[in-house]
């Protein structure tokens, strides 16, 4: 079988003696959507407003009285064949021998090629303004499977905080580990298997969900979600491509021109900020 490992990637360590191969199993039958994983992660890494290393995709399905809520925690899938690693021009992101896909902030230039490459939308750019200026900014960030905790024998923050014990983390090379047993016992699936990335976050009960169906998610955005998003955007620069556009006003030639001009204006201001000629905000 041909290998899909190009560039700075360790070959997959499944079954290799003496090596770890960390993976996560998320049991959606147990997940109650409390959001403790999100909160724990935000606190662990002091993540700024608007970016997440792990987040919940929540969806209401059905018609009254047959309504139910579906929740899928989403995070970096620590793929065995990560496209982000393949496409990073500065080797800032790499595949660790133990299965982690990690980010070296000191090498990252913030070109966002990895974000373009990621099929899971799991990467984000840390904004220029941080509460603690010593923290990384202007670089791509992602879930690290809490490598700093795992290397000390602790579970990742999201796993440790999961109130329903829906997230299970462990070594797939250990046949007695809980993740290995679950993968043998349960019917698991992964997000976007068509991308050929061999994700290492496995879901139980994903086929019963519906949130994983990307297109239908986009077609039926709720009003509340749009409002939340626009409220968030008020704290940030201008309108960008990819923003949720509503109605004829924004998709008309005039509306589109307004967006283009606005975006270029923000970019020009950004140049002066980066040169230190004007202060940030």
């Amino acid at each position: 079988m041909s290998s899909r490992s190009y560039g700075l990637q360790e070959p997959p360590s499944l079954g290799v003696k003496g090596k770890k191969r960390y993976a996560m199993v998320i049991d959606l039958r147990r997940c109650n959507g409390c959001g403790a994983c999100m909160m724990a992660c935000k606190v662990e890494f002091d993540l700024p407003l608007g970016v997440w290393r792990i987040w919940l995709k929540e969806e209401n399905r059905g018609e009254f009285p047959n309504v139910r809520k579906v929740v899928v925690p989403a995070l970096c899938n620590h793929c065995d064949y990560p496209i982000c690693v393949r496409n990073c021009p500065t080797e800032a992101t790499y595949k660790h021998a133990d299965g982690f896909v990690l980010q070296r902030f000191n090498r990252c230039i913030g070109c966002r090629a990895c974000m373009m490459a990621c099929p899971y939308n799991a990467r984000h750019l840390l904004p220029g303004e941080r509460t603690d200026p010593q923290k990384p900014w202007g670089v791509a960030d992602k879930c690290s499977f809490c490598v700093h905790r795992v290397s000390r024998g602790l579970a990742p923050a999201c796993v440790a905080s999961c109130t329903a014990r829906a997230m299970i983390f462990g070594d797939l090379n250990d046949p007695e580990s809980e993740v290995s047993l679950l993968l043998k016992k349960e019917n698991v699936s992964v997000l976007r298997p068509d991308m050929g990335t061999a994700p290492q976050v496995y879901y139980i009960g994903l086929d019963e969900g519906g949130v994983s169906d990307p297109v239908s998610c986009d077609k039926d955005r709720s009003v509340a979600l749009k409002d939340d998003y626009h409220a968030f955007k008020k704290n940030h620069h201008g309108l960008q491509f990819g923003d949720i556009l509503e109605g004829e006003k924004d998709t008309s030639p005039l509306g589109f021109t307004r967006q283009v001009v606005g975006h270029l204006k923000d970019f020009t201001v950004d140049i002066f900020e980066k040169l230190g000629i004007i202060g940030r905000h």
Partner: protein
Amino acid sequence: MEREIVSNAFHHANWGIPIAVYFWLVGSSAGSFVISSLGWVFGIKKFKPISFFASNLSIVQLLIVPVLLVFDLGQSTRATHLFPVITGFWHASAPLAWGTALVASYPVGMFIYSYLIYKHNEYWAKIFGLIAVIQACSTHWYTGITMALNPSRHPNHTAMAALLFLIGAFISGIGLLNIILKIRDYFVKEEDKVDPTMIVGLGRLMLVGLCLDIFLVFSEFIHMTYGTEEEFHVLELVTTVFRSPVMYLYIGCGLAIPLVILVSPYGKKTNGVLWASGLIAVGIFGMRLGWVGISQYSQTIF
């Protein structure tokens, strides 16, 4: 069944309008340079009078590019990390690593070629011109490849990306060159003015590229219509949210109207070609906007 998304994350606006402008500029630069090389490299003598001007124009266009790219980085001061000579590491599997090498070396090649034309050194101009033409095509080919090598971005992940970029570059480059040549005429002496037949000749070249571009776009649309659900979703985006840059600006203003102008008798007159040139140059910018923007928008759905 009714569905309502309650929450999701939005990590999607990665590459924006500065990158679209960069694609447009580097494409126009490549197009101008190919025209410049027709006279000195490929021996078509009637294009020789505009070679020097076209080559310098493509250098100017390309000099704006680093400003856009460097200041679009999250960490602009670390742009040096892209150069293996400085850092000692080079990630060969990344398209941007190759792109950096091309974008950095292409202006040097053009400078040498321009200098040799200036000195009327026919022999070396031909050799260095050929090298620079390969650099020009590669530089623009790589921009298409950079977008195409992202399998999750359905509008971009097509083997036709590089070709679409190259053909678009060729026609927008000629278009912009025609316009700037006309503007130049207002500032130069009577004997230095461009021969109107030259502009008409460039218009004929543009027509060939235009037909090829329309064929590629048609193929791409068919592909999307018979594609997966995600590809069909891209088609929906093209006809709804992004209809201004793609349907109106690119296909309408950039392809359909110039085609009508160029195949009509008006297309054999200078004014007709100039109108078509302007429309194509603006229309191809719409293609670049759509190309970058749709991929950002379609990624929000994951």
